[in-house]
């Protein structure tokens, strides 16, 4: 009993001591929630600017049908529920400065191809 308690205590103590630096790296990441509305055939906002290191949480809502939200060049791709049926969330770590195109990935009508936007990650 005593040995077990000692082992659990030692494990936790190690955990605490070994990872004191871990929160330093995670706390350097700003977290930003961005609400995006999808509607045939636009995203609003369609141009999103964030700083490098920001963890962007997209909250995606549709005003009409199902849309997709795909960040080109990555595997990030979610389906946005139809109007009145909740929202999708997608988390994007803005690690590298640059421009990232996002687009609707689900055919939504005659103007589907216009449904695009831009994420700019600044230094």
């Amino acid at each position, binding site marked *: 009993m005593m040995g077990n308690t000692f082992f659990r205590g030692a494990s936790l103590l190690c955990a605490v001591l070994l*990872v004191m630096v871990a929160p330093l790296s995670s706390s350097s990441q700003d977290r930003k929630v961005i609400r995006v509305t999808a509607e045939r055939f636009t995203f609003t906002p369609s141009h999103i600017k964030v700083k490098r290191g920001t963890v962007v949480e997209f909250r995606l809502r549709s005003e009409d049908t199902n849309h997709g939200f795909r960040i080109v060049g990555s595997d990030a791709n979610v389906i946005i*529920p139809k*109007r009145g049926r909740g929202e999708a969330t997608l988390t994007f770590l803005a690690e590298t400065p640059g421009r990232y195109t996002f687009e609707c990935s689900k055919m939504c009508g005659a103007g589907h191809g216009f449904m695009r936007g831009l994420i700019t990650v600044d230094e």
Partner: protein
Amino acid sequence: MRTLTTFSIAMLVAGPLVAQTPNPSAADPQNPEKAPAETRIEELERRVRELESRLLEQTPSAIPPSTPSDERSTVSQTGPLSGYMDFHLNRPEREDPQLDFHRFVLLFNHSFSDRLRFVGELELEHGFVSGLEASGEVELEQAYLDFRLKPELNFRAGMLLAPVGIINERHEPPTFNGVERPFVDTFIIPTTWFDAGAGIYGTVGNGWQYRAYVMAPLDATKITADEGLHEASQKGFASNVRNVAGTGRLEYVGLPGLNIGASFWQGKTGFNFRRGESRVGVTEFDGRYHTGCFAVRGEFAQVFIDGAEDLNDLLQRTAGVNPNIASQMRGFYVEPSLRPLPRLKYDVAAFVRYENFDTQFRMPEGVLPLKQFDRTAWVFGASYFPDPDVVLKIDYTIVRNQSSLFGSADSLNIGLGWWF
């Protein structure tokens, strides 16, 4: 394994505990027999579990998860095809009612790569096609390749929709009120207006986007006094491109719920005549806005036909009848609407639309306009959406003209439309 996972997560999250370590002297008041060290360990364990669950919620990932609130009910089960259907019952005053499967449209979408894509839209109108005039039509309304370079500049070539007005590029049944499309978007802007062409499009930042195409021009011999430009498109059928037309649209979509745009079309149309030339220009402005349960949209379009006098002479020599084509046509509409149950699964909408459209707004010199072509329409209607992609519509349309000789018929219309 689970212990190891818990331990690893604890390593990631336990840092803050250093600053928040409980007071070592604080024993569990519920169980005074417990050793202070044991109580402290239990407290730490509890906090590690709490932080573990928080971490799992918040860890960013390179491959983000899809987390709609209710996957089963929010995502349509769609196959490789998409499309829309439009099924109408029209009952004009003093006439028998008609059932019309107005539109059966299939859309195709294929990505060769992130930069190169194909989109096609094939439409069957009125359910039946034969060689007779009164039958339906099969139309290839879109079939283009997109060459995507960057957001500001992309190329498109093939069969294109003219980027003019609200309805021409946005005509899925759940997207507009009323069983039939607005008259302005039928006679002044000849939706669905498509033809062969090529051009560029893109976004220019701060919510502005554009398209600019060259397309096959309209055919002057198909312009009529009654229906304006409605049948004037060559529709990609061996389209004559002796002179191409230019068209473009600039839109602002930078604010939630707001979309305002301006479009133009300019092109020579007299390729069927050896002598004489005519030119058609279209200028259009439109806006849409919705907030909460309220929405409003409006559109203004004006057509300029240069050389209308010569055109009438040439057509009279060919057909024996002066077609009475105007030098200017004009139309506009305003449509407020209400959706009193916003964001609910089952939705209803009510609207009223006022339209004014005149296909003889200005005539060539010396020719008087015919008053029956100066028309107004009031459309009152409602829509029920059992699903955001399915709509049951009903409206009553009152059309009036300025003539004391020619009457016009009201109509009751019921429509079922769906997108899939």
